[in-house]
């Protein structure tokens, strides 16, 4: 078994054995989803044009998915490894340093799949339906999980640079402006001018739109799906690259 797979297995086991590290990251987006629905369900009935005869929950599901998978959990696991001295042990082993980061990201993939299934389940319970069918559901899960992997690099890099639990945990806050400066409540064309301009250059907009079209439309819109996949890939390349660079320059 390759060193990446070995470290991935260890990280996935860790996720499984410490559910307390995943549950808070899941609780907040589900809480937001429920609160948002309670507040705006009546304002946006199913007859609202941009809902395409769905409940507002369907419109919100992609936001909750992206919110749930964009966590600092891997960064926190990395800073724990630094604290307990286990990272030193791995660094002294004859392995590629990149395998240490890939192992962590594998855990993000597993966690992302599990969390996405749960969030979708909550959405279904509130009446959401994925119009693009089973393929759409699978794409929602896979793309959400991959976004979680792509985004995880930022917390890992912060963990390696700062070696500080509080700072790494606070990196979660970076995602709030990214999430809320998007068409998360209404479509892009309904946003006010300045917010619309910001949302257009915000990569998270393209993730939410790609996922949202899978929920709202029966046919897959390859253009928005491609933009979503491309954004995930580019974000992943940049942030994973930064985290690997941080590990290569890591020393106590």
């Amino acid at each position: 078994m390759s060193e990446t797979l070995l470290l991935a297995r260890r990280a996935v086991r860790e996720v499984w054995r410490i559910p307390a590290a995943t549950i808070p990251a899941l609780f907040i987006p589900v809480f937001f989803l429920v609160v948002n629905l309670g507040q705006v369900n009546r304002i946006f009935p199913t007859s609202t044009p941009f809902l395409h005869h769905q409940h507002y929950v369907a419109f919100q599901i992609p936001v909750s998915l992206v919110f749930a998978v964009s966590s600092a959990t891997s960064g926190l696991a990395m800073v724990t490894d630094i604290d307990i001295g286990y990272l030193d042990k791995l660094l002294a082993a004859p392995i590629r340093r990149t395998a240490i980061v890939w192992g962590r990201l594998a855990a993000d993939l597993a966690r992302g799949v599990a969390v996405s299934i749960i969030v979708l389940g909550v959405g279904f319970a509130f009446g959401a339906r994925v119009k693009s069918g089973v393929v759409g559901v699978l794409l929602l899960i896979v793309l959400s999980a991959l976004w979680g992997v792509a985004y995880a690099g930022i917390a890992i890099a912060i963990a390696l640079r700062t070696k500080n639990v509080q700072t790494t945990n606070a990196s979660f806050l970076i995602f709030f402006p990214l999430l809320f400066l998007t068409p998360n409540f209404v479509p892009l064309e309904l946003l006010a001018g300045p917010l619309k301009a910001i949302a257009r250059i915000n990569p998270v907009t393209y993730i939410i739109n790609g996922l949202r079209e899978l929920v709202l439309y029966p046919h897959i819109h390859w253009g928005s799906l491609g933009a979503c996949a491309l954004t995930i890939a580019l974000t992943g390349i940049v942030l994973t690259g930064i985290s690997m660079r941080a590990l290569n320059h890591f020393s106590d």
Partner: protein
Amino acid sequence: MLCTLLPISEGEARVSGIDVRADPAAVRRRIGVALQEVGLDPTQTGRELLELHCGLYKIPDPAARSVELLHLVGLDEAADRTIKAFSGGMKRRLDLATALVHEPDVLFLDEPTTGLDPASRMTVWDEVRRINAAGTTVFLTTQYLEEADQLCGRVAIIDEGTIVAAGTPDALKAEMGSDVLIVGLDRSQHDEARAALTALRGLDHVTDAKEGLAVYVEDGAAAVADVVRLMNAVGLHPATITLSRPSLDDVFLAATGRRIEGGSPEAAA
């Protein structure tokens, strides 16, 4: 730096004949490392962690090697418990086992018995002796000079980043060339006593020690009576006089001018 965890700031270092700066990956393949802070993932079981490390070191049969190592460090029964439930001694032994998966040429142990109870300390000592007897060079860093005396073939005393004494424990102690009498006096009386002791036959040298004045003399037993006489002659009455053979503590004291008390000076061998 020798373990490749820190970049070399200055000079050159070789481990097992390999230039650490030029080829750190080759060094990593030949060394095992057990640092002062036990580096174990508490969410894994002992067996899982050893199998992981066997895999990372490309050991052909990780499961079999893990069983062997668990037996070696006496953790067979605890093998499938998560590490967070291990005692300090068990963690230390498992940490040692993870450093041994690939039978390294050189094993770096950084204060391997710090925080252990006496029984666990003895177990680790036995294990270090066994590893060394099997052909592995053990590079041990410790603040316990008795530990260095018991385990090490060669000792180097480092003070403020500089080696101030080096050699086998016996040679270092022999260099002291004398027995040690610790004369229990108040510190304010040391100067007066020191002056009086210049007349002592076989005197090597005198230093201040925590417990009193350390008098290094050729034949300690024969000198006790003379020391008492010389002290009394100048009106001093030592509360205690303790005779001992020179230990590495004495070597350390002579080399650094102070006794080790968990501070920065370290012994490495």
